């Protein structure tokens, strides 16, 4: 039976959700106008005042924000309330450019944790569960967000944070953890290690996993579900908007419900900014509805996905977003072709390799080089050179047909691909353009 953390709002009729959004949007715009000169100026440039925004139908009029705005307004330029009311910051794990710093009041944290609690309950969590949070704790939103959500559900929470795989496994086994929250690549890694230790899915007490903060494929999901003997749920979020829990999967495992009482989602054409109809693929844009410290209106996520309002069997009425095809930050343009790491992952898993890979792009004599290091696994290894080369050729052909361009595959030793904060370093782009 489907469980809900806040059934009344999660299953509310669409008219009710609209009414909430209308009311909150008007207030949120007024709050930003009054307190964020950076955005007020953007509105003034379009000859807008808060009075022009009467309902969500007026949303399209508002100027959009992008990562560049966050950079320009760093650190306090988008803060909408006095520092005395702010209690915490979180920051993105981004490795390029300036870090994004987001601010929270106590109420902001409360709402964020509620969103995470909805995700945990949707994955079957109750106060009887033992929930191991193996996302990094600290500036990264993963750990703190799920930790708070787990408290709200009433789970016994193991704040394991990331790393120290041996200890992670010890806690899962000794304390009979039933829910695991971490990045999908770390879940896969934990699964591999437990398999090597001779643990079967039946022996592993976990029943559900809540995995996010990285793009991952359906194949990877099936893989993790098989090795750990669990049901794996996707969770989505971004620091700018709050953190994990902006949207989450239900038992249907078909798209993530966006918490529409807190966020409005739009899909736009990333080139023109034009709002696209439901069901069309495009860039996801979020507007926060009740944030105090760091409200963002029409923030461009760079995530490419689609939205659907189709009825979901779980009973939730909130709009669903598809698994992002890849954050456009992750998307690489190699020899003019768009390459998403998740596509590479799919091909690897379909060919029997593990999803442990690293893409290395460089530019030599004005031509992009495209190398993929793939970790060798015991399953794919034989003592026969010709056989290994033949398998590698099949893999390269598979990549070529999926991506449309040729990649050079190099087989590397297991566990040699760098991992940081539990997030695998998937892409090394050495091009200096």
């Amino acid at each position: 039976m489907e469980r809900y953390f806040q059934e009344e709002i999660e299953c509310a009729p669409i008219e009710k959700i609209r009414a909430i959004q209308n009311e909150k949007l008007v207030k949120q715009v007024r709050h930003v106008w009054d307190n964020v000169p950076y955005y007020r100026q953007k509105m003034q440039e379009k000859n807008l005042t808060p009075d022009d925004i009467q309902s969500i139908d007026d949303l399209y009029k508002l100027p959009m924000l992008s990562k560049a705005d966050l950079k320009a307004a760093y650190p306090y330029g988008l803060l909408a309330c006095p520092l005395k009311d702010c209690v915490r910051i979180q920051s993105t794990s981004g490795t390029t450019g300036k870090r994004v710093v987001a601010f929270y009041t106590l109420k902001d944290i409360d709402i964020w944790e509620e969103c995470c609690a909805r995700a945990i309950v949707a994955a079957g969590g109750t106060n009887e569960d033992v929930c191991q949070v193996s996302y990094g704790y600290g500036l990264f939103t993963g750990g703190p967000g799920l930790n708070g959500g787990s408290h709200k559900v009433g789970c016994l929470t193991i704040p394991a944070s990331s790393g120290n795989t041996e200890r992670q496994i010890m806690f899962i086994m000794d304390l009979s953890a039933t829910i695991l929250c971490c990045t999908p690549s770390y879940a896969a890694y934990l699964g591999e290690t437990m398999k090597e230790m001779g643990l079967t899915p039946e022996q592993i007490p976990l029943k559900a996993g809540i995995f996010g903060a990285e793009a991952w494929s359906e194949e990877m999901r099936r893989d993790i579900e098989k090795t750990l003997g669990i049901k794996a749920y996707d969770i989505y979020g971004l620091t700018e908007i709050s953190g994990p829990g902006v949207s989450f999967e239900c038992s249907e495992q078909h798209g993530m419900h966006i918490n529409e009482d807190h966020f409005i989602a739009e899909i736009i054409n990333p080139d023109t900014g034009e709002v696209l109809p439901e069901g069309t693929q495009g860039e996801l844009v979020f507007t926060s509805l009740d944030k105090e410290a760091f409200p963002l209106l029409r923030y461009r996520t760079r995530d490419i996905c689609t939205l659907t309002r189709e009825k979901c069997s779980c009973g939730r009425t909130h709009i669903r977003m598809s698994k992002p095809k890849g954050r456009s930050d992750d998307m690489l343009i190699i020899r003019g072709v768009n390459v998403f790491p998740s596509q590479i992952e799919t091909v690897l898993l379909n060919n029997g390799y593990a999803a442990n890979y690293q893409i290395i792009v460089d530019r030599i004599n004005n031509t992009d080089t495209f190398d993929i290091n793939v970790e060798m696994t015991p399953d794919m290894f034989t003592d026969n050179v010709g056989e290994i080369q033949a398998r590698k050729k099949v893999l390269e052909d598979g990549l070529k047909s999926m991506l449309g361009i040729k990649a050079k595959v190099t087989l590397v030793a297991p566990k040699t691909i760098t991992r940081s904060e539990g997030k695998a370093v998937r892409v090394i782009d050495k091009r200096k353009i």
Partner: protein
Amino acid sequence: MSVNQVSVFLENRPGTLNKMTEILANHNVNIRALSLADTNDFGIARLIVNDVYEATNVLKEENFVATFTPVLVYKISDETGSLNKLLQSFTEADVNIEYMYAFAGKKDAYMIFRVKDTKNAESVLIGKGLKSLTQEEIAEV
């Protein structure tokens, strides 16, 4: 009886082979015979060692991919023509060799063969009067 060879995946960069030998040395694993197959981007080390289980375990712990491969080992006398004689039996028995390598002892020499169907090859060669060595016999050489 076939013998377990340890096959190890090696990245093609300086130091990998040395890392493998260092791990084996630290765990008192003695390498009796070794052959390397190499390509442009990876290699496979094939080893006959005194303790195959210890060897694969310690290599796996250090993140090497190491597996067992069944091979046939024959003892021949260390004199002109004995390998030729041995291979004649392979030819007559129609056994195809995938790869082979060898090591010489004090008075005898040992030939290690990888064939496709180890069990079948072993039995047809027994018919030719050739008995392959066991893991224990190899360890004592």
